[in-house]
C-alpha cells in the first residue's frame, strides 16, 4: 500500500504528515526552528536549520509508521509564504538568514516605492512589507557584494518552497501560488512581469522558473516531489474548494479567508488581496480573493506566554467558560498594525470597554471573540466584493480549519456573529492535506478532483443561535474598538 507524504514548512516548525488514500493521517512528525529577532520588527530564520529539520521530520514520520521511501508515492510541499532566502548556487550556502514574512525592515523601501496601489493591478497586492519582492531587494542592497554576485549568476532567490525543492531535487523552481506573493509576478501571464522586476530593481537571473502547483518537479530518495503550494492555498485545496464561490478560513497564528474566484483574477475594492489559488499541471489557474488577518491564534499565545493566566492555548476555553459573556470588553489585537480589510500600519492594540466588573474570564472571552469579529470583517469585505464583481460568492456557510477549530466556544461564537453555519471538515490539517492532494494528483495516486471532493466529510457543524439585536450591538462595539486602534503610531515612533 502506498502513501503520500506532505511536508509543511511553517513559520514556527516543519512537519511531515503521511496520508493514506482516504485522506486519513497515518503518521506525524514535527520539529521547531529558531525565531531570530536581530532588532525590533526584524524576524529571521536559518534556512540551513530548516532544511536539516525537514530531512529529519521526513525520516521521523516514516519511522513512526515503519515505512520506507518505497512506500511513498509522492512528496507534496506546502510552506510559510513570502519568507525569502538567497543562496550560493555552487555551495548551497544561504548568503544571509531568511527574512520572514512578518519582518518589517522593508518599511522605508515600501514608502519610497510610492502609492500603496501602484502594483495592485499587475500583482493583485498592495505595497506592504509582507511580500517577498521588497525583501529580496533589501538583501541585494544590504548584503556585501550580493548585487554583483546576483548579476554574475552566482546566487539564487527563492521562497521556502523553492529552497526545499532545490535541496530535494536540484531544480530551481517555484509554483504559481508562491510566485503570486512576490509582487513580481503578473497575475494574467503567470510569469515574471518585466515592469515589476525592473521597478523592484532585481536581476531577472536570480528568479526561479514558475511552474504549476501540481506536477513532478524532480525526485528525492527515488520519490517524486510533485506539488508546491503556499500554506493558505494548500488549505483551500485541502478543503476541496475547486468551484468559484467556494472558500475556507484557516485559523492559525493569523486567520486567512480565501475564496475561489475561478479562472479570472478579481481585483478587490474592499481591502482583500488577489492571489493565485492553485494551478493543476497544464490546466488554467484558479484565482482567489484573500482576507488576511494577522493576529488570531497569536493573541491566545500572547495571553498564555505574556499574561500567564492560562498554561496552554486550549485552557482559554475553560477560562472563558467561567463567565457568560465578555462583560463589555473588546480586544483588538493590532499588534503589528491591522491587515485586511483595514491595512493600517499605524494601528496598535487596544482593550476597550474596561470597567471594574471585568474579570480574567471576560478577558479570555474578549481574546477569543477577537478572532470571530475579525473574521466577520473580512467576510463582509468578501461579500461586498462579490456584489461588485457580480459573482455568486455570498458565503452561506463558512468552512473552517486549523488548530483553533478545536475551540468549541470560538466556533459557536463565530457562527453566531456571521449568522451562518460554520463547518469543520474531518481532516483539520487541511494545509498538509492540500499539499498531499496536489502531489497525489500529479502522480495518479488520485484520479481527479472529484475523487478528492468525495473524501471531504463534515466532522462538526455549529449553527448560529445569537439574537440579531445582540449580534448588531456586539459588532457596533467591535467597530468602535477598532476605530480606537488607528493612528496610534506617530512619525517619531520607531
Amino acid at each position, binding site marked *: 500500500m502506498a502513501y503520500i507524504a506532505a511536508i509543511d514548512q511553517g513559520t514556527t516548525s516543519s512537519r511531515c504528515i503521511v496520508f493514506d488514500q482516504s485522506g486519513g493521517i497515518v503518521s506525524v512528525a514535527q520539529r521547531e526552528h529558531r525565531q531570530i529577532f536581530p532588532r525590533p520588527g526584524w524576524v529571521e530564520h536559518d534556512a540551513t536549520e530548516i532544511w536539516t529539520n525537514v530531512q529529519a521530520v521526513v525520516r521521523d514520520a516514516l519511522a513512526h509508521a515503519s515505512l520506507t521511501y518505497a512506500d511513498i508515492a509522492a512528496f507534496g510541499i506546502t510552506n510559510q509564504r513570502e519568507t525569502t532566502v538567497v543562496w550560493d548556487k555552487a555551495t548551497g550556502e544561504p548568503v544571509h538568514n531568511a527574512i520572514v514574512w512578518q519582518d518589517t525592515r522593508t518599511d522605508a523601501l515600501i514608502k519610497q516605492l510610492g502609492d500603496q496601489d501602484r502594483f495592485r493591478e499587475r500583482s493583485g497586492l498592495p505595497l506592504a512589507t509582507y511580500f517577498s519582492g521588497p525583501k529580496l531587494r533589501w538583501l541585494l542592497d544590504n548584503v556585501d557584494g550580493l548585487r554583483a554576485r546576483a548579476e554574475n549568476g552566482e546566487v539564487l532567490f527563492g521562497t521556502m518552497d523553492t529552497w526545499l525543492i532545490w535541496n530535494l531535487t536540484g531544480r530551481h523552481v517555484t509554483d504559481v501560488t508562491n510566485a503570486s506573493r512576490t509582487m513580481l509576478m503578473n497575475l494574467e501571464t503567470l510569469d515574471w512581469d518585466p515592469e515589476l522586476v525592473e521597478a523592484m530593481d532585481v536581476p531577472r537571473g536570480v528568479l526561479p522558473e514558475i511552474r504549476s502547483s501540481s506536477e513532478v518537479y524532480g525526485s528525492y530518495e527515488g520519490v517524486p516531489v510533485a506539488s508546491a503550494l503556499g500554506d493558505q492555498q494548500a488549505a483551500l485545496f485541502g478543503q476541496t474548494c475547486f468551484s468559484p464561490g467556494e472558500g475556507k478560513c484557516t485559523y492559525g497564528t493569523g486567520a486567512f479567508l480565501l475564496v475561489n474566484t475561478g479562472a479570472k483574477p478579481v481585483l478587490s475594492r474592499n481591502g482583500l488581496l488577489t492571489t493565485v489559488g492553485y494551478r493543476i499541471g497544464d490546466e488554467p489557474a484558479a484565482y482567489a480573493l484573500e482576507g488576511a488577518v494577522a493576529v488570531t491564534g497569536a493573541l491566545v499565545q500572547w495571553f498564555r506566554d505574556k499574561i500567564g493566566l492560562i498554561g496552554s492555548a486550549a485552557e482559554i476555553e475553560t477560562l472563558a467558560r*467561567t463567565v457568560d459573556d465578555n462583560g463589555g470588553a473588546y480586544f483588538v489585537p493590532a499588534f503589528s498594525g491591522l491587515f485586511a480589510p483595514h491595512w493600517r500600519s499605524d494601528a496598535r492594540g487596544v482593550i476597550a470597554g474596561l470597567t471594574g466588573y471585568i474579570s480574567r474570564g471576560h478577558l479570555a472571552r474578549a481574546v477569543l471573540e477577537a478572532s470571530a469579529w475579525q473574521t466577520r470583517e473580512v467576510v463582509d469585505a468578501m461579500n461586498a466584493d462579490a456584489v461588485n464583481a457580480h459573482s455568486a460568492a455570498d458565503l452561506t456557510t463558512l468552512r473552517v480549519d486549523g488548530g483553533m477549530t478545536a475551540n468549541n466556544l470560538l466556533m459557536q461564537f463565530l457562527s453566531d456573529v456571521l449568522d451562518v453555519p460554520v463547518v469543520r471538515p474531518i481532516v483539520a490539517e487541511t494545509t498538509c492535506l492540500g499539499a498531499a492532494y496536489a502531489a497525489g494528483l500529479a502522480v495518479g495516486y488520485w484520479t481527479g478532483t472529484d475523487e478528492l471532493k468525495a473524501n471531504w466529510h*463534515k466532522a462538526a457543524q455549529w449553527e448560529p443561535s445569537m439574537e440579531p439585536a445582540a449580534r448588531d450591538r456586539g459588532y457596533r462595539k467591535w467597530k468602535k474598538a477598532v476605530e480606537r486602534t488607528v493612528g496610534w503610531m506617530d512619525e517619531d515612533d520607531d
Partner: protein
Amino acid sequence: MPGPIQSIQRAAEVLKLLARGGAHQLSVGEIARALGLAKPTVHGILRTLQEVGFVEQEVEGGKYRLGAALFHIGTSYLDGNELRAKALNWSDTLAMRAREAVRIGVMHGRHVLVVHHVFRPDNSRQTLDTGSLLPWHATALGKALVAFGEWPDGDLQRFTRHTLDPEELRAAVDVVRDRDWAYDLHELVEGEASAAAPIRDRRGVVVGAIGVSGPVERLCESPDQPPRLELVSYVREAARSVSRELGGLSW
C-alpha cells in the same frame, strides 16, 4: 506514628468534590451538604485552601472552584479542552477508518462528559453533542473510564432489557481492565453498540476514553455479538496515538 490528620482528609474531600464538578462551581453550603460537614468547618478549610491557591473564587463571597496552583503540580487533572485539542487529528482519522461517529469522554461525577464529538463521515445531518452527559454504565466510554478509576456511587438506571445489572457490570468492568477496551451492546439504546479504549497521560493514568458508536448492523457481525475486532483495533490504535500525544507512551 500518628494517625491520619482529619482536617487534611476533609480538605482532600473538598478538592475531590470540586474536581468532580469540573467547570461547575460550588458554594460553601453545597459543599457542606455534599460532605455532611458543618458550614463553618467547610468555610475554614476553603479559606486555607484559597490561601495556598488550591481553590479560588470568581468574586468575594461567591462560589468556589479549583485553583490555578493545583493545575500546575502534576495532578491527573487534564483540561477537557486540552484533551480535545491534542486528540483532534486522531479522532478524525478514527472516524474516517471506522466510518462511524467518534466521541471522547471524561468522568464528570457519575456521568461521562463528552469533550469531543466527530460526526459520522457521511455528510448526513448530525448535531454536535460536545458538552453532553452520558450514563457511564451503559456506554463503552464509561466502562473504559471506570475500569481504571473509581466506581461511581448511585443507582444504575435500566435503559433497555440489555442494560447490565450491578453484578454483570462488575464482571464486565473486570474484563475491560484485562483487555484494555470496552463495548456496549443494546445497553443504552436497543439496536446500538459502542466500543472504546482508555487514553493515558505520561504517568499511565487514564484521563479519558475514545470510542465509536452506531447501529449494531454496522458495528457487529451479528446483533448479539460484540463489535468487530477490526473496529476495535482502530479504536485502540486511536487511543494509543492520543496517549502518545499526551506523552503517555514511549513507542
